[in-house]
């Protein structure tokens, strides 16, 4: 009789405790499942966006990832803002994809983002940005004027998702003195003859007390593997962006050759540590101090050299492959309009004004004037807009610039005419990580090129398959 009694009063007590707990747990479950709401393809993104709408009176266009920085950005921004007649608020600094996507997921995206072109495929595949065909039509953007590979890089699933701008290309930069000392020419280091590059490396490399004192040739790995592979007719990714080609024999051969250049100088660690100790942007840069024989480098570095060491003994030319052709692995930026942007019409108009030929021409004029005032050579601007590039070269770039800057300008424009890009795909970051990690394993002495690229191929293809499967399911 006495045994059950203590239990009875406890039941309601326990149920009182369990009740609030259960309610709290339910709230938490509902909260968590309802918290991470997404946006994207399910929302029919872009279907009903009116790119021709008038800007909201007193509205502000929020731009993420763009800063005016120099005259090229500032002049175009001022011009576009004036044309728009609305306030434009810039969130400067490189675009942080996570910050952008979080803002988009929270339903508070900026009106316009300024992204790396290789990010566009990922953003588009996740439904984060709007297709821009209607924007192009509405604003009369002449897409034929854009550099084709730049346009291809922002085209995903046959739809344009970005308005490209700028084109970064590589040219060969070399120390004229070191080449002359060894009886070499630019053709020995421009990539057209891999054996000659290796021989030139051995000839120009110097060691002092066991330490590297002159880097013969810097292959610029891992970043330029796509360039060296292209010279052998290979692309890291298939044209449709679905198949990795990292274990292609031509890619492996390109990697072996580029690594052999480092090995001829004591190995990549020696070259990298010496390179890291250099005054890259200053008057004591590697060419000015005779610490570097040759390397491939983006064209913007020509201006750095022109400003910091105008009298350094330099030689310039395009990068060539063993096939004898000029090649340049182009990178650049693009404007994209997020799904859920408050004022997509104003964003479209701003992007259109920023990338039109007249905007580039005006900005380039200001830069040319500024450089003339400083007694520096105006070496041109690669805008991603062929029409603007031609106009700037014809009207603003000096017809007969002093050596060696004349060769630099010629090489830059030659490279701009021979660019390639990696196709837009939904796993851009994963693909890049896979091939760069593979190259790094070779550089760090952990794997041989063939094994490293085989592993990279497996990782990259797995990421591509998963991302494309998700995309295909949504279609």
């Amino acid at each position, binding site marked *: 009789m006495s045994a059950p009694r203590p239990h009875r009063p406890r039941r309601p007590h326990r149920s009182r405790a369990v009740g609030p707990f259960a309610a709290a747990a339910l709230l938490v479950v509902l909260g968590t499942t309802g918290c991470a709401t997404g946006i994207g393809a399910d929302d029919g993104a872009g279907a009903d966006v009116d790119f021709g709408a008038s800007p909201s009176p007193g509205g502000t266009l929020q731009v993420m990832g763009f800063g005016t920085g120099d005259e090229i950005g500032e002049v175009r921004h001022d011009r576009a803002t004036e044309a728009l007649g609305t306030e434009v608020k810039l969130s400067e600094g490189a675009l942080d994809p996570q910050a952008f996507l979080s803002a988009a997921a929270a339903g508070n995206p900026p009106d316009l983002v300024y992204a790396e072109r290789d990010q566009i495929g990922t953003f588009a595949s996740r439904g984060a940005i709007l297709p821009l065909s209607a924007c192009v039509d509405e604003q009369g953007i002449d897409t034929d004027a854009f550099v084709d590979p730049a346009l291809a890089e922002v085209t995903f699933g046959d739809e344009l998702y970005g308005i490209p701008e700028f084109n970064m290309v590589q040219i060969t930069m070399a120390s004229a003195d070191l080449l002359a000392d060894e009886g070499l020419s630019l053709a020995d280091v421009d990539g057209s003859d891999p054996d000659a590059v290796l021989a030139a490396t051995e000839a120009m490399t110097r060691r002092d007390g*066991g330490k590297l004192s002159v880097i013969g040739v810097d292959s610029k790995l891992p970043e330029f593997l796509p360039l060296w592979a292209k010279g052998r007719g290979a692309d890291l990714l298939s044209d449709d962006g679905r198949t990795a080609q990292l274990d292609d024999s031509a890619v492996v051969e390109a990697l072996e050759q580029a690594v052999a250049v480092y090995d001829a100088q004591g190995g990549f660690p020696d070259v990298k540590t*010496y390179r890291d100790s250099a005054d890259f942007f200053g008057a004591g840069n590697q060419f000015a101090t005779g610490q570097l024989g040759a390397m491939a480098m983006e064209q913007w570095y020509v201006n750095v050299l022109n400003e910091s060491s105008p009298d350094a003994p330099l030689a310039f030319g395009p990068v060539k492959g063993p096939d004898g052709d000029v090649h340049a692995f182009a990178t650049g930026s693009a404007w994209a309009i997020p799904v859920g942007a408050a004022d997509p019409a104003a964003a479209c108009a701003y992007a259109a004004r920023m990338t039109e030929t007249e905007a580039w021409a005006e900005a380039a004029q200001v830069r040319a004037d500024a450089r003339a005032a400083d007694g520096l050579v105006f070496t041109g601007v690669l805008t991603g807009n062929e029409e603007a590039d031609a106009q700037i070269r014809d009207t603003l770039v000096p017809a007969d610039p002093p050596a060696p800057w004349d060769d630099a300008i010629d090489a830059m424009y030659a490279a701009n005419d021979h660019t390639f890009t990696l196709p837009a795909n939904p796993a851009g970051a994963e693909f890049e990580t896979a091939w760069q990690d593979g190259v*790094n394993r070779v550089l760090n002495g952990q794997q041989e090129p063939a094994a490293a690229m085989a592993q990279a191929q497996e990782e990259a293809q797995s990421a591509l398959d998963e991302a494309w499967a998700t995309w295909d399911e949504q279609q």
Partner: protein
Amino acid sequence: MGRTAVTTARPSARARRERTAGLAFISPWILGFLVFTAWPIFYSGYLSLTDYDVLTDPSFVGLDNYERMVDDPQVRLALWNTLQYTLLQVPLYVLVALALALLLHQAGRASGFFRTAFFIPKMTPPVAVGVLLLLLFNGEYGLVNEALGTIGIDGPSWTTDPDWIKPGLALVSLWSVGAAVVILLAALQDVPVELYDAARVDGAGWWRRTRTVTIPMISGALFFVTVVNTIAAFQMFTEAYSAYFGAGNSTYSNDAALFYVIYLFREGFAELHMGYASALAWLLFAVIMVVTAVQLLVSRRLVYYEGEQR
């Protein structure tokens, strides 16, 4: 009985008031904890059971993320790197902190100056420390190898040789050893002088006094420094990321520097596999919990707290 009831009721009412006031005072912290710590912890647990890319709705995948971790070679590599670094860094850090604290304890009036001097580097942003690492430990022209060269030692390639990446990072972590020095110095100053006097009377030399008086008396502080630093070592990120994966090395990286949190960050914030990254975070949480529990168990035999009853 009635009197007893009255006397017990008064403190109870007062205790309630004090409790209410106490809760009111700490409520901002409680609120902050619930919103910014407890909720994200719980929410990451939910996300770890989903496939979530930040933009599209999370889709429930059960334990798939945890199963994927088992097969992921990068997880094993990152865990192994992190464990190696922890085993290397924690003893080094604690020993150097102890040695410096013992030295400062002898410094008399000047100890205040040195205490500040040792603590100042702690103020340096970790990103800057990562960049500093690349300069100081440059295998060709870094100050560290230059110094080693003066005594005839040919220094290694600290920043590129996979075998020397972690020792380099462990050494550069000593940049912020001042924080631990301050804690240990405070503990040293609390050791009763009488104990040293008694030990001297018994003929104990410096080493004997340190081993049998100092270390046991500051073992609580040593344990605290060890536990906190172990957790920090398992969470190693900023210095390694800025040195080997950040702006200074946007394309070059080294597997030897792929620490667990760097891999987690890469999965979550670069490749937007937020569900998988959440599962990775929970594994790290479990590992740290186990290690800390083991440390607590061991501490029962080794750590002495003044005033404790056994």
